[in-house]
């Protein structure tokens, strides 16, 4: 497990770095897919296979395909050479580093709550994570679920409105 965690961590971080450093958005997109896969790996380690599947289906599958589609739709040659200024890089890097340092300091100094829930690894394994998620989704989180559906609907309208050439 430990080993797998480090492997996935390495892949995720490396690919994430590649996403932000690659000049060509298409390359970035492919690295992003890789990153998503690594995250899915994490989910598997954490016994959330359902989420791993969702991650790959929705993110790597749907969203990234959409992204790649859009990149292709736009003129690739005109969008791939958008560089960044040096000072932008320095300031950005600095800020990110500071943010990172702060968050890590918080994490190291802080402590999480003691595990109090009932859904131990064993229980999840016994019932099955999909079933648990499903049960919760349709009882306690029914309203968010419904809202999410409307949200997606609105997003479709939005995408349609933005993408169409004129009214």
């Amino acid at each position, binding site marked *: 497990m430990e080993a797998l965690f480090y492997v996935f961590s390495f892949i995720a971080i490396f690919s994430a770095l590649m996403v932000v450093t690659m000049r060509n958005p298409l390359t970035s997109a492919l690295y992003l897919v890789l990153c998503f896969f690594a995250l899915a790996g994490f989910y598997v380690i954490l016994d959330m296979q359902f989420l791993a599947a969702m991650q790959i289906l929705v993110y790597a599958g749907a969203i990234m395909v959409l992204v790649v589609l859009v990149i292709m739709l736009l003129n690739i040659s005109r969008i791939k050479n958008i560089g960044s200024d040096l000072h932008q890089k320095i300031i950005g890097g600095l800020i990110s580093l500071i943010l990172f340092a702060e968050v890590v300091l918080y994490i190291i100094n802080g402590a999480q709550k003691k595990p109090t829930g009932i859904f131990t690894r064993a229980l999840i394994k016994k019932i099955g994570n999909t079933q648990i998620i499903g049960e919760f989704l349709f009882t306690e989180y029914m309203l968010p679920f419904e*809202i999410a559906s409307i949200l997606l609907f609105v997003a479709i309208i939005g995408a349609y409105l933005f993408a169409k050439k004129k009214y």
Partner: protein
Amino acid sequence: MHNMPLIYGMNFLEKSMLSIIPETVIIIFAFMVLFLAFFEKLAKRKNSYYLSLIGIGFSILYVLMLSDRNIYGFYGSVVFNGFEVFLFIAILFSGMFTVLMSKDYMENSGMPAPEYYSLILFGLSAMMFLVSSNNLIMVFLSIEFMSICAYILTGYIKGDTRSTEAALKYFILGAFASAFLLFGAVFIYAATGHLNLYAIHSFLENISYAGSNKAVGGIGIKIYISAGLVMFLVGLAFKMSLFPFHSWTPDAYDGAPTPITNFMATGIKLAAFAIFLRIYSLIYNFNIMNFNDILWLLAVFSMTFGNIAALLSSNIKRLLAYSSIAQAGYILIGIIGGGFYGYSGTLFYLLAYIFMTAGAFAVVVIFENSDIISLDIKRYAGIGYKYPFIAAAMSFFLLSFAGIPLTSGFMGKFYVFSSAVKSGYNWLVLIALLNSAFAAFYYIKIIVKMYMPDKEPASPPLNSSGDNLGIISGAIDDGLMLTIIICLILTLLMGVFPQIFINFANNSADLLWRI
């Protein structure tokens, strides 16, 4: 705090549904408006306009019908009580004003109406969900829902690069802030193990009394919570457009269609403040860490930046945007002041704020001729003589912004300031008062333009196109006039006889306060 009356049982759906009826009504009407688009005959602008108004009206009706209920619906995901009643009505008013303002605007710009109105309604429902959400998932989801509607509406003007640019900026910054909010939620979750706000509240209450008792986590948890709350605050402060998370405000306000600017300035701000107020009263307001310090800074910076930046602004929409940043700072003072008095004051100010803002934007819409120059304050020269009523109303709204007595702005300011003084934030109030003093300059600047032009216009005919001064083509739309009149009456009423509104706000704040 109350015991959480989580409703488990067979008929929980019925009871829960009651808590979201107003939102549901709005959503149903949103779909109805949207479906109008399918029918060539019905897709006239007027129909969707009236349908939206009817929907909002129904929703208000339902809110009023439910006004004495206190419901925790959907396993505590949403709450519906006096607080929500107050804010629902305020939000619905804001939506109503937006719709009323839009008719004229839509006709001028030729945009497709059904989608537009339905998005406004969807946005309204999202705001209402946000206000009543009692769960971090609901908070996040509603914020995103609301924001997505706002992104779409901001970029609604096809072919207008400014509109698209505004949407782009708004979107990227919004998503960025949302990421912070989300990451903050992770930390809160890690520290407390809860997503429900009440549950988090009681957890924090325990540890704040327990001190550094190892059994419940102690000091480490507090650090986690700080990290979580700070990052959560970033997300919320963005929506409230507090400095330094304000940067989207002027650009998005400027580029968006003016009724939508009003929607953002009133509705979104209202919803953001409402949820912040709720979360603040539930979570932030513990002595684990003094969040008031940071809010103090945010308030001071917001006021000062907003006012100073607005000082020389020549574009009326940007000016109002900067002013709204400053106003957010003032509103925050009420929250910092805290207590029953402070919350009530905040709500009162919010209510006052939407009326004056909506009124001001209605005037802006009247004089906006779909070209950029019409937003220049110079364009307002001399309208005081040509359109005495509108100019007088505009002056009144601006004076209200400036906090001159007789206006709701004064009462609101007085209310929040005195609550802050009550809690001992004297410097804050002093700074706020000095801010109001020099802020008066740019409000008055507009009045100067309207009534005291450098060269008095020789009363040009109403429809002469050659004249460079504010000219309205045709008669003023009834919806706009209605908005102005309602806002004017309410601004005056809240300034002179505020007691009923205070009672309303008190009822609403009472429930927050007694948690």
